[in-house]
């Protein structure tokens, strides 16, 4: 039995690099320091859903074949296609992504990563407006005001609050954990008193709206120099909202309105309405006061902004709000990146093609026009004629209409698990888990590169994504050369 320390967790964009794994007999048997998703990944990577043998669909059934046959079939599909789509990439290493881009160029296809259905609009907006940002270390040590907008880190990035923001112990800022515990205790106490009074004297029910307003307006309990404040903006009360000093419950699809209203308030303009997006202006003024009076604010935004009405225009407004706030104090903004290497996918794409996602090589040179060259649009227009999916599950994650066309294409899936896409694929190639069975590099959400460790050996015959892609690429090149010779 051996213990490996400082392992990087290959789940979400936090890339926590303090995981301790106990390895016994080439298997992870214990996970320390990780969140629920981290533990599920390290304990579940070798579950019964694991793919171990390459498969090809013959007469409607997936049949086990050799890796050489599967690679040849995949190369054939890609080489013969006129407009193949190469999609996924955010759950593998930068090294594998790099080979994938070369393959896309070779086959004249479209290469796109999962940011297209995640923070794609944020990238478009950042290109338009610019982004005042920093590393998470800066936030941990200095930020005294944290805002989560359209994001529920408690579920999507479980250790984000503890490692980098409100509950982290920074050099200059203390954790707000104690305040939170005190607040919860006070709330529980108050609830007990209320229910006792109710039981004794009041027969009718206390309306829940009253209880909510009590909680909503509970001011932060400690306003000391080193304390931190937390604001959560969301359409529903989440677990993250519960720990916030201020929770702003906004009506769906009205983020743009609220952001612009906050911009006006930051610029000392008066609003001639009582409510914006269902939030009283009085309450917004309180929030703007907290924003402009902080020393170092950090706004983290999630898919609540990119996926609802307005999309990239919401991000325009959020970035502009932070720009405005920088005229009053120090403020930074950062998207909450989902997959562990989605930032890496954007980075490697940009190095090699000049663009972060949705890159079209069909004319022989890279073209980028999200809305046209983005994978969901291509599928909705039914233009692609083959697809290679690496470390992703678009059949499960795309809208049904887009997934439908994907199933009509010859489909190649490279994945460690029998996911939904692999179930409907024509060629399935099992791969080693990046960050567990294969080493590599990944980029954290703040664009800090962090090495991924190989902690166990992959099952016999299972190769890392990078090697599989290199073999497909070599095979495609061979096919193309043979075609050229034939034509000559």
């Amino acid at each position, binding site marked *: 039995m051996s213990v490996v320390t400082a392992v990087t967790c290959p*789940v979400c964009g936090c890339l926590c690099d303090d995981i301790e794994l106990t390895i016994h007999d080439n298997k992870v048997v214990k996970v320390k320091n990780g969140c629920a*998703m981290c533990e599920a990944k390290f304990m579940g990577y070798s579950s019964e859903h694991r793919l171990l043998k390459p498969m090809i669909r013959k007469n409607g059934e997936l049949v086990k074949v050799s890796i050489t046959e599967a690679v040849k079939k995949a190369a054939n599909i890609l080489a013969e296609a006129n407009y193949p789509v190469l999609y996924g990439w955010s759950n593998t290493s930068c090294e594998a992504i790099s080979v994938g881009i070369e393959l896309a160029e070779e086959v004249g296809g479209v290469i796109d990563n999962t940011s297209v*259905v995640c923070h*794609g609009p944020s990238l478009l907006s950042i290109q338009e407006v610019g982004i005042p940002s920093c590393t998470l270390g800066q936030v941990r040590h200095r930020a005294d005001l944290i805002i989560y907008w359209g994001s529920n880190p408690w579920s999507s990035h479980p250790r984000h609050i503890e490692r980098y923001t409100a509950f982290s112990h920074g050099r200059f800022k203390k954790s707000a954990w104690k305040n939170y515990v005190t607040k919860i205790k006070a709330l529980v106490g108050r609830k007990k008193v209320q229910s006792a009074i109710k039981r004794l004297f009041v027969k009718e029910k206390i309306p829940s*709206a009253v209880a909510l307003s009590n909680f909503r307006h509970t001011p932060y309990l400690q306003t000391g120099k080193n304390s931190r404040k937390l604001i959560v903006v969301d*359409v*529903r009360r989440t677990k993250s909202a519960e720990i916030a000093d201020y929770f702003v419950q906004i009506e769906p699809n009205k983020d743009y309105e609220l952001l612009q209203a906050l911009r006006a308030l930051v610029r000392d303009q008066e609003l001639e309405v009582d409510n914006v997006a269902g939030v009283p202006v009085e309450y917004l003024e309180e929030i703007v006061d907290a924003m402009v009076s902080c020393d170092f604010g950090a706004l983290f935004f999630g898919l609540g902004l990119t996926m609802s009405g307005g999309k990239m225009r919401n991000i325009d407004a959020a970035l502009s709000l932070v720009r405005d706030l920088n005229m009053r104090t120090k403020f930074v903004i950062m998207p909450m990146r989902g997959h562990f290497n989605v930032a890496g996918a954007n980075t490697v794409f940009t190095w090699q093609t000049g663009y972060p996602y949705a890159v079209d090589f069909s004319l022989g040179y890279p073209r980028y026009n999200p809305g046209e060259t983005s994978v969901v649009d291509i599928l909705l227009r039914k233009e692609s004629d083959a697809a290679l999916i690496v470390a992703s599950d678009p059949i499960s994650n795309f*809208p049904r209409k887009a997934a439908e066309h994907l199933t009509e294409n010859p489909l190649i899936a490279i994945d460690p698990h029998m996911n*939904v896409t692999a179930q*409907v694929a024509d060629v399935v190639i099992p791969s080693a888990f990046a960050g567990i069975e294969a080493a590599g590099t990944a980029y954290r959400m703040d664009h800090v590169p962090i090495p991924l460790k190989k902690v166990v050996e992959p099952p016999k015959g299972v190769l890392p994504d990078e090697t599989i892609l290199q073999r497909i690429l070599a095979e495609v090149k061979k096919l193309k050369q043979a075609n050229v010779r034939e034509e000559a």
Partner: protein
Amino acid sequence: MGGCCETAGLGSVVLMSINEKPKLEATLITGRTIEQGVEKEYGKSSREYAESVAVCYIDAEDMKKLGVKEKTNVQVSTRFGSVVVKVLKSPRTPHPGIIFIPYGPWANSIIDPETHGVGMPSFKGVPATVEPAADKPVLSLTELLNAQFGKV
């Protein structure tokens, strides 16, 4: 269908006629839950994964209006399709008129594929109606894929 006698707003329940089931007009949000996050890592072919995502979180008041109990089936429909899922009482309320289905093939059967020229479909904020569907089953992943793509 009977005539509608009142203007439908978010969170309002419309009784189309005396014999018809009540319908809830709502806004559909899809997103991450920790259960979905954990189960997707273990493997999507599992029953636990299906149980973590083929659900719909509804405000307790809305459940009362609809006359549905927790863990019974409801049909959620949008302009883009309809799907049967199990009702769960939203743990943190109130959010009348907002329903939540975790990311997954069930949610994606009914979200808005329109990308508005930026590549991103509308996974959040889709107008939807919910109605009790005690007589309809929640499809398993294989059944759902077969019904949608006929290829498993």
